[in-house]
């Protein structure tokens, strides 16, 4: 993996990104803006499952309202994230925080899909206990993902030099 990262870092595209600080800053800023869109969209969906917001609306209505924003934001995050990885592949590939973040991202997407499936035909305000647990859990996972994302820049400080 480190060998691949070293090769990627020497490609013209990666060098072009590395030498344009303003572009990295712009990509990171868009990434943060999209965190806001994805986080709050998922927060609204989860809070609806927990019966805290949009109580007068069916779950499917809330899902239809926020899911497109969530998926579009996630796609934009994936794209900007990919460019950021290409811009500094060695730092990302050798960071424990990066791999934990990717792993949790897969878990979060699985939770969202499960949430959708569990609540698809539900009109009432009382989802199962497991559904409510997943709704709360996915928000907690997103918080950890944001922390891990920031921790990539401080990997040694956070995890120690063994990384």
């Amino acid at each position: 993996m480190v060998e691949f990262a070293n090769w990627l870092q020497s490609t013209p595209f990666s060098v072009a990104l590395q030498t344009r600080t303003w572009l990295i800053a712009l990509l990171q800023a868009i990434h943060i803006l999209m965190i806001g869109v994805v986080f709050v969209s998922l927060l609204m969906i989860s809070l609806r499952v927990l019966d805290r917001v949009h109580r007068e609306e069916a779950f499917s209505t809330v899902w239809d309202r926020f899911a497109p924003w969530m998926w579009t934001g996630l796609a934009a995050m994936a794209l900007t994230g990919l460019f950021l990885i290409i811009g500094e592949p060695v730092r990302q590939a050798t960071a424990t925080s990066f791999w934990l973040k990717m792993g949790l991202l897969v878990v979060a997407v699985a939770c969202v899909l499960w949430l959708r499936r569990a609540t698809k035909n539900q009109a009432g305000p009382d989802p199962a206990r497991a559904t409510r647990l997943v709704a709360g859990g996915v928000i907690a996972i997103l918080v950890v993902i944001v922390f891990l994302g920031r921790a990539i820049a401080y990997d040694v400080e956070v995890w120690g030099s063994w990384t």
Partner: protein
Amino acid sequence: MDLKLFAEAAQSTGVAEWMRTSVKAMPFIEATHVLCVALIFGSILIVDLRMLGYPHTKRPWTRTYSELIRITWAAFAVAVITGALMFAPNAVTYVGNTAFQFKMLALAAVGVNMLIFQSVSARSVAAWDQHASAPLSVKLAGVLSILLWITVIMLGRWIGFTKGYDFTVPEDVQFEFPG
């Protein structure tokens, strides 16, 4: 109060010293700040888009607003605290940083926009709360709010790339590089 004196005073506090020497504090504080700023932007975006009539006007704007405003203010309070904690250890550098100065200006503009909206446009909310298009002044406040928050976040990220390097080297300075 002189800004430089204030920055020097902030930088010499015990909290600033703790932030400078604590290895794990800065990543944690920065991550919390990013999370809160993202929460502010996401929640404000929903309220502002509703002012523009998106996705529809069937749901009262006041209901959307009251559901989200607590999240926005809570996130804002934590963002101010974490921002102050990030500012203190390098306060003198920050106050001289152009990106930081513009970010503070953009934040002030956010506040002014919100004050004008709350004291003028929001008073007519009964007329456009539901099943009606909001007046131009409300839509303008919504667009301004979105653009200003995007600016705040862009400048905030740019600070990280300019902090400590945001100066012009005088022409008569000679550098000597080893080797």
